[in-house]
């Protein structure tokens, strides 16, 4: 019972003269715009905005929202993204007037509550990471990577060391090499073993006096904890380098292992993954970073400080790399992270990770009866199955299975990542899913693999758009609606 009319574009729905509200005639003298603004600021004509009745707009967006999948509507096992259910109490707390109605330019004495929360969050993240100092400024995980690598660059510069290389395993998120290059380093790839761990011989051959940082995701993108990390950290530290931990997979180790304890010198958190902030759509993200004492002077300024019972913005940090984000970062998602951490407490956060790992292992045990899981029968919070054999035998790819899952009411897992596994399907159930949901997902997967190949390749049949032409979209992008007359 889809309302297809309402989901046409707003430009198509527009009719001249249609309005959401009609204001009474102005009862004070009207000043011509040209008298109020200089000519250079005036457009030749009003912008070409759609003209609509309020109900058209509400129906348009409400109907559009039902054509998508979200953690509020569907199981969403998107590996590496930790699509856990986001408790609604966090939304209520984040919308308290003391958080949403403050202006960044008002005196700090009038927003002590918000600053206290940010100060305490810095402390909580330091404790969870096992590191010493925190910046809440970065606006996303990749931004955190960049900020931390800039901190590392400033640290080495200050010490007069010429270190130009960042070493990154081939299973890493693509953001790692991108951040390294953006921060002025050369990205050097380190191979993985067939089991997905860092190839120690390859790492050893690439460590040199030019090594600045070794970036590692641990647990890695195959959902395996690399137990060589202490040895790796010793080698990298002996070579004079730093260890960066990509915190994308922190959901597996909260309260169990602290990156600072296993050798990391810097890391970022993804509050939208680990601490239940909404992903995209729900507002801007955050990528707070934590670092060791000796890197703290270089953190972005200001940080939130406390002196004589007053919270303040500490901008007096001469070695700082400066601001990486306006004001205090994206506080909305930080408030949600704080609420999540405090409502769980230390024991609760540990239970979050234990349950996330248990759920993933349970689902792995079901899925491996259907598709091979090259890494073996155990995982941390996620695992990577391969559709390679099904593709070779029946011509059904990871994409086909993913598309067909949509018809069964499941958001697909991440596919074709990590690049080290062919026809990869990266499945992360998170701790918030019940056994019934995991069983239903495994049953759907079993059913799909029993269907005729043609049927799977034609999926999805139930979505408003079946298979967009991704190749054409990438090669000949159309970035403006043809129905928009706007220039």
């Amino acid at each position, binding site marked *: 019972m889809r309302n297809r009319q309402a989901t046409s574009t707003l430009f198509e729905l527009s009719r001249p003269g249609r309005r959401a509200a009609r204001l009474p005639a102005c009862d004070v003298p009207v000043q011509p715009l040209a008298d109020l603004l200089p000519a250079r600021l005036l457009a030749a004509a009003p912008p070409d905005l759609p003209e609509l009745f309020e109900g058209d707009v509400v129906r348009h967006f409400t109907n559009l929202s039902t054509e998508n999948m979200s953690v509020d509507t569907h199981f969403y096992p998107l590996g590496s993204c930790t699509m856990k259910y986001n408790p609604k109490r966090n939304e209520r707390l984040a919308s308290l007037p003391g958080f949403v109605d403050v202006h960044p330019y008002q005196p700090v004495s009038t927003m002590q509550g918000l600053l206290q929360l940010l100060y305490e969050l810095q402390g909580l993240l330091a404790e969870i990471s096992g590191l010493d100092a925190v910046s809440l400024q970065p606006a996303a995980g990749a931004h955190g990577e960049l900020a931390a690598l800039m901190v590392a660059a400033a640290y080495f510069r200050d010490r007069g060391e010429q270190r130009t290389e960042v070493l990154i395993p081939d299973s890493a998120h693509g953001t790692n090499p991108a951040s390294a290059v953006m921060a002025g380093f050369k990205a050097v790839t380190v191979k993985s073993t067939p089991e997905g761990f860092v190839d120690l011989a390859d790492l050893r051959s690439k460590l040199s006096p030019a090594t600045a940082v070794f970036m590692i995701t641990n647990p890695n993108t195959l959902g395996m904890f690399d137990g060589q990390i202490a040895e790796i950290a010793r080698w990298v530290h002996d070579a004079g380098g730093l260890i960066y931990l990509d915190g994308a997979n922190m959901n597996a180790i909260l309260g169990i292992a602290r990156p600072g304890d296993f050798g990391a010198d810097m890391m970022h958190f993804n509050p939208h993954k680990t601490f239940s902030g909404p992903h995209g759509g729900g507002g801007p993200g955050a990528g707070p970073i934590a670092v060791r004492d000796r890197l703290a002077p270089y953190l972005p300024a200001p940080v939130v400080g406390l002196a004589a019972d007053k919270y303040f913005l500490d901008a007096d940090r001469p070695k700082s790399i400066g601001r990486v984000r306006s004001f205090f970062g994206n506080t909305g998602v930080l408030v949600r992270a704080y609420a999540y951490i405090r409502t769980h407490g230390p024991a609760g956060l540990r239970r979050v990770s234990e349950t996330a790992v248990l759920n993933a292992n349970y689902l792995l045990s079901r899925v491996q009866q259907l598709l091979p899981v090259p890494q073996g029968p155990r995982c941390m919070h996620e695992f990577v199955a391969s559709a*390679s*054999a099904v593709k070779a035998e029946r011509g059904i*790819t990871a*994409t086909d299975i993913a598309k067909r899952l949509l018809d069964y009411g499941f958001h697909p897992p991440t596919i*074709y990542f990590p690049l080290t596994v*062919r026809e990869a399907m990266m499945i992360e159930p998170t701790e918030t899913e019940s056994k019934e949901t995991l069983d239903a997902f495994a049953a759907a997967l079993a059913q799909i693999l029993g269907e005729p190949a043609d049927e799977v390749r034609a999926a999805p049949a139930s979505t408003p758009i079946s298979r967009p032409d*991704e*190749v054409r979209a*990438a*090669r000949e992008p159309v970035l403006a609606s043809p129905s928009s007359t706007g220039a």
Partner: protein
Amino acid sequence: MSASRDPNQLKYAKTHEWVALDEGIATVGISAFAVEALTDLVYMELPEVGRQLAAGEAFGEIESVKAVSDLYSPVSGEVIAVNEDLAAHLERLNSDPYGAGWIVRIRVNADEKLAGLMDRKAYEKQCAEAEH
């Protein structure tokens, strides 16, 4: 000039580039196996003519709907020709990877020993192992 070559006569790099050597000139492309693994191709970045390449050095990029991958030079030498039309006709990599899908021609350095290149049989073995 771009007649399809017999894949059995070519040499292959671990990173899936093929090489046809003729009087010190190496014609380089990517194997049908690589094209198939990349899935739908959307974009390609090619090197400038005249560029000096070391063996194993990245000389370009190929982007599919899945991922961006580097193209690596299987030999050391100077780029003397680039298949300029290819970027606008990526389907040639699917239809004729060993002919019209050639990517660059490289004048191979005199001291190049072609170390690490495989014959077709060894390359097929590597691909079969990657499948499972």
